[in-house]
């Protein structure tokens, strides 16, 4: 498809209600970490941006939110122009300036502490990471505890960042600073806010 | 028999119906038209536009009628409407030096390029009620100047040429002005943000604070460099076009206060600036704003913060009359749940107090009760 058409098509068919549905799924997932929220494909972004990650970007990003793209997405001009057309979000100069980061290839991604962690005064000024994962069942199981979880929850996301458990422990230790993560599969999402603690199943 | 109060919805409906009736008043008196308000209560319209942060005379006039002349209510109506409007872009900064001036006075020079221009002012009117106005007699046409208006450089520019006044701000070239309608306030704030808040601040509040600085609560030795009122062009940059596109003009009042300053550890002796700018014609507000702006620059200029007018958090947090009226008036909402908790506490504490202070009496009471 021609790039111009590709960048214009594939947005929300019903912007007001699609955005609300996607947001509620993210809010519920953030409030109950590890719970998996199913999501219809409201958006059809160019590859390699996934439908779910694209829909999250459409519902949360705009010209007030600098956006960081990982190498896989940076290499796709169609993705950049699609995001630019539908959200108006400027691209962040550095990961530390980003309000949101879209990561199509988490296994190769930079360290979590390279993104904005917020400050002790304003811990909300941190990057929210949106990671593409193929599924939430075939990876190494992660046992989750913390606010939003009654006792414990388990997810097993595939293709997570390297040394993720160690990195996440460090993210926990920076609290109230730190990043929050949204894991997006093709048709669902789940969240890891900075308060969630991960125990490996072996432990 | 006790029946809980119900029917809030009907009560609210009926109250609003009565409000509409009282707003209209005696039906035999002609209803006000918006153009009458725009033309004949123009300064009220200006205040509503200024503190409502929306330059639209007709909507401001509508708000004044709808609010039965309650200015803060009218300002609130305009604000609640403006906040729903989409934002298309930001105009370029207005150039008040290029203003089509209708009034301009300077207190610092007897005469100056462009001259003193009194314009439509209450100054030097004798405040005698005018029965002829009540009778609605004919009003003579004003005199108009015959020659082309002379250029009117701003007084601050004249002083700056001699290097006697501080530079006009020290914002970096690439500074993007903030927007208090789009970003939460954060203290301490940059001067651009502070000026925005002051410009929509309550006239009465700023007037009282400005007055307090004159009476010695953070005195800042002000001279009115100039007050000017008139029309300024609005222009917007459009990426597709090589020049700025004119959108029209707005009437504003600008006050440049020149303040004597002996110097401090942070700044050399020089004249300093206080700035006021509001929509429409309102020099009381523009002057009060300029006094407050200068007072709020205390820390920047190395002065001690000793008075209310210099306290940024205090001034800016309380200058918005829509916020202030909402919170003061919310006290009339039901609070009986919390009051019940307090009642219980006071009763218990009084019982303990009584038992401590007057054990015999408490004993008597108890026996009597039994």
């Amino acid at each position, binding site marked *: 498809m021609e790039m111009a058409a590709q960048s214009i098509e594939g947005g929300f068919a019903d912007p*007001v*209600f699609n955005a609300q549905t996607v*947001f509620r799924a993210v809010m519920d997932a953030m409030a109950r970490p590890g719970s998996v929220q199913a999501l219809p494909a409201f958006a059809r972004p160019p590859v390699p941006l996934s439908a779910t990650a694209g829909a999250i970007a459409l519902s949360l990003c705009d010209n007030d939110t600098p956006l960081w793209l990982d190498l896989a997405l940076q290499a796709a001009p169609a993705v950049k122009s699609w995001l630019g057309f539908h959200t108006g979000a400027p691209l962040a100069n550095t990961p530390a300036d980003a309000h949101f980061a879209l990561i199509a290839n988490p296994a190769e991604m930079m360290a979590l502490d390279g993104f904005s962690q917020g400050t002790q005064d304003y811990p909300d000024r941190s990057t929210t990471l949106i990671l593409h994962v193929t599924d939430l069942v075939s990876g190494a199981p992660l046992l989750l505890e913390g*606010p939003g979880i009654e006792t414990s929850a388990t997810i097993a996301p595939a293709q997570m960042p390297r040394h993720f458990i160690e990195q996440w422990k460090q993210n926990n230790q920076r609290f109230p600073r730190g990043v*929050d993560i949204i894991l997006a599969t093709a048709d669902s999402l789940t969240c890891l806010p900075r308060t969630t603690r991960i125990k490996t199943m072996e432990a | 028999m006790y029946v809980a109060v119900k029917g809030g919805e009907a009560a609210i409906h009926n109250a609003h119906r009565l409000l509409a009736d009282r707003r209209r008043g005696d039906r035999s008196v002609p209803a006000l038209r918006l153009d009458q308000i725009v033309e004949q209560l123009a300064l009220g319209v200006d205040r509503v536009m200024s503190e409502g942060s929306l330059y639209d005379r007709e909507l401001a006039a509508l708000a004044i009628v709808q609010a039965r002349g309650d200015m803060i209510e009218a300002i609130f109506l305009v604000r609640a409407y403006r906040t729903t409007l989409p934002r298309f872009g930001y105009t370029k900064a207005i150039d008040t030096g290029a203003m089509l001036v209708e009034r301009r006075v300077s207190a610092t020079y007897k005469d100056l390029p462009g001259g003193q221009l009194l314009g439509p002012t209450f100054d030097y009117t004798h405040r005698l009620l005018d029965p002829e106005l009540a009778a609605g007699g004919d009003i003579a046409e004003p005199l108009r100047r015959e020659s082309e208006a002379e250029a009117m450089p701003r007084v601050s520019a004249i002083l700056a040429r001699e290097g006697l006044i501080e530079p006009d701000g020290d914002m970096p070239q690439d500074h993007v002005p903030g927007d208090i309608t789009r970003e939460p306030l954060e203290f301490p704030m940059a001067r651009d943000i502070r000026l925005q808040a002051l410009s929509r601040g309550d006239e009465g509040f700023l007037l009282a604070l400005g007055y307090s600085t004159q009476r010695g609560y953070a005195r800042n030795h002000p001279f009115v460099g100039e007050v000017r009122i008139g029309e300024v062009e609005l222009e917007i940059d459009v990426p597709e076009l090589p020049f700025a596109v004119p959108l029209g003009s707005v009437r504003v009042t600008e006050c440049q206060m020149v303040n004597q300053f002996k110097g401090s550890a942070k700044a050399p002796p020089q004249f300093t600036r206080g700035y006021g700018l509001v929509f429409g014609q309102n020099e009381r507000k523009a002057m009060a704003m300029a006094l407050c702006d200068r007072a709020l620059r205390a820390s920047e200029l190395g002065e001690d913060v000793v008075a209310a007018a210099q306290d940024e958090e205090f001034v800016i947090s309380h200058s918005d009359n829509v916020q202030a009226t909402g919170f003061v008036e919310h006290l009339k909402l*039901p609070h009986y749940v919390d009051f*019940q908790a307090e009642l219980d506490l006071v009763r218990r504490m009084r019982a303990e107090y009584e038992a401590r202070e007057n054990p015999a009496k408490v004993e008597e009471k108890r026996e009597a009760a039994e």
Partner: protein
Amino acid sequence: MTAQSTDIATYNFAYLDEQTKRMIRRAILKGIAIPGYQVPFASREMPMPYGWGTGGVQVTASIIGPDDVLKVIDQGADDTTNAVSIRAFFRKVANVAVTTETAKASIIQTRHRIPEHPLKAGQVLVYQVPIPEPLRFLEPRETETRKMHALEEYGLMHVKLYEDIARHGRIATTYAYPVKVEGRYVMDPSPTPKFDNPKMHRSPALQLFGAGREKRIYAVPPFTDVVSLDFEDHPFEVQTFDQPCALCAAENVYLDEVILDDHGSHMFVCSDTDHCEKRRADGHRGHFAPETLAPGNMEPAQ
């Protein structure tokens, strides 16, 4: 989609424009991720006054969808004028279903109370907050209180509570009683009576707090520790009532005192009107219930 249109103005679904909703939604997500931390947000003017629930209304307007069922209470009651007004607002601008039944609501906006009926997972409780900063009355400056939260420096609050004990023999705070969330942030629960504080602790519902005038949003996720501040020798305790509800005989609920005449007669009835009505419909009768007073008439209350 427009909910309402006239010649001069059209309004979006749920009143707020989409960009404003996104901004508030981002703040809500940050609030959930940092429980008890007050997220600054660019609060908008709303068509009701500041101090009358604009924060709660903005939060509700940003989360609500066409499938939601909304309940609005003020002082625990669905029929107080401001609750009626806010409910009517959402019916008008979002055309959303409304209810007075706690169990049937997906979103409950409240001022000053938490419903007596236990909340369940999936429900969202939206609080209207006048002054979100629990330290504000000890330190009026935002710059200072922000520092205290950053450094987790809450000594001033303990000193205040301790002074209460020294002076009055007890902690003399009966509402807006400060809590600590997940062992980190001291938070204002909004001016609910402290009677309701224990309901916040590990609630299955998501709790969102909106302060419009003060431009802050904060949150307590489900199953999160919310602990009322106290001292070992003066543990936190809630208010107890000497008598049950005069209408439905409920005990261990919060009661309103109703003045019956000008000779000091009064009775106590449930502050939560929905709870009281439900109980009466189930046949519970207090000593002042109409059915009790007129034994011939045992018809259930309408």
